[in-house]
């Protein structure tokens, strides 16, 4: 039910405009390269950043490094990426752009590598596609655009809620017709 009282679920992250931290010892810009989202916003900030110690990483969602600027082109899997991130200078600042699930995957990788939350800046997601976690069979679905969505694991129609887990980088999906099998709402685009 949408009502005016407090409709925004508080676990859904809010994203503030990215600000360059001038005093950082190293600036790392990580962008998801995909057809859905363009990293132009982050690229603009990268170009604006006056620091001489900055790098750009373009990554695909499966954590493969596609290309780099100010770094030699390479192809690195996520374990190697983790290793590289853990050797960043102590006072680094990392700016991330991409789909919401990609950004939280990167965020968690960076936190695991020893960065503090305030050292990681996430941009507003480049698209409204969501990762959805089925709360019944735990199947995780990528690039969900509509609610309800049929679970690829248990085949149940799932209502995609705004309740978000930063650990999973995902929204929760809940069986929409458990109380009445015929009660399936019209498909709506996620925002």
């Amino acid at each position: 039910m949408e009502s005016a009282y407090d409709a925004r679920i508080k676990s859904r992250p809010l994203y503030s405009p990215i600000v360059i931290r001038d005093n950082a010892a190293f600036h790392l810009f990580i962008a998801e390269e995909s057809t859905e989202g363009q990293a132009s916003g982050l690229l603009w900030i990268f170009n604006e950043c006056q620091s001489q110690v900055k790098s750009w990483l373009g990554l695909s969602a499966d954590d493969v490094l596609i290309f780099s600027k100010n770094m030699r082109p390479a192809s690195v899997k996520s374990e190697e990426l983790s290793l590289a991130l853990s050797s960043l200078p102590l006072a680094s600042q990392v700016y991330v752009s991409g789909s919401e699930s990609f950004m939280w995957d990167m965020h968690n990788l960076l936190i695991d590598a020893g960065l503090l939350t305030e050292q990681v800046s996430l941009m507003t997601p480049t698209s409204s596609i969501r990762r959805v976690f089925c709360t019944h069979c735990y199947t995780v679905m990528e690039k969900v655009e509509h609610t309800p969505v049929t679970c690829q694991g248990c085949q149940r129609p799932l209502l995609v809620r705004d309740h978000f887990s930063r650990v999973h980088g995902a929204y929760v999906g809940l069986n929409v017709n458990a109380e009445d099998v015929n009660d399936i709402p019209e498909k709506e685009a996620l925002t």
Partner: protein
Amino acid sequence: MSVSPKPIQTFRDDFTYTNSDYAIERFPFPFPEDAYRYSVNIESHKMPGVKDSVSEHFHDVDEHYLSEMAERDLVIKHRPSCCITLPHMDLACWDLIDLSMHHLSKDYPEHFSLEKTDDQWVWENRLLGLKDSFTFGDSSTLPLPPLEYIGRQLQGDIALMDQRDNSLFMDAGVVTCPADWSLAFDAGMSFSEWHGPVPFVHSEGIIDRALKFLMAIPQGGATRRLNWTLTINPRMDTSPEVYPDWGKDKTTVTPENVGDKVYLRVEMQVFDRMPRSNALMICIRTYLISMNDLVTNPVWAKRMHRTMQTLPPELVEYKGLTRFHPILVEWLSKYDVE
């Protein structure tokens, strides 16, 4: 009066769960007023509490002990993800073992005993027929991971919250009777994210105040609050994981079966600081009472009617009562005539 647990009754399928007259008498009825009001309603859990009440002892071991432990075993077997311990929470689990074993053996010496020689502990739980020797703090000396080990001997769900970055994070738990929340999805969340879907509490500042209060709880400063919802049939496992099994129960309520089908579900939530890890323990103990048993107390019957009648529509929706709420209010009205 300490009671011996009854033989195992069920919280699923044939639903053989019942409350004795004594259990009805001591039921933690949660409504202090004749109209619904949201409040944090926190009070001290200082021991000993009122004699024979559910808060007389730190952990209330009641007539449903064996039934609840059998139910917990079923849930853990079907859904291992209901026990989660992130690696940094091992010490907090041992804190809980220490706290629980000391309280249980002191409060119920007929059922539990603890012998300690330095860090060599011998724990006996006669209700479950367990006798285990282990080295305190060494998880490899227990037959199960520490949180699952003690969780299988305590009534109520447990969440262990790590305190850092000005918040509490749900980094460990054993959760088999949740009121519609998933540990597998919510693990690792901050306190306010975990409560993200709850209406009112954010805009009225309740969550922020509760969080500040909980973070300031000192060692030995245990507190408690009551929370409630309604459940159809005496079903303990109302997790979202199995919502496809219990969601349809809501359509089975009729004016004729309200008294049997609708249960008031009350959680006594106890919060305490863990001494070694500084984690905050939340024990969420669930009590269930049928409307038929509840209305045997005329004060409760009248108050239940008035509370349900004045419940804000957002809460009717959030608590999932929409399908049967009007039938319940109508049925309760006959106990509120003056």
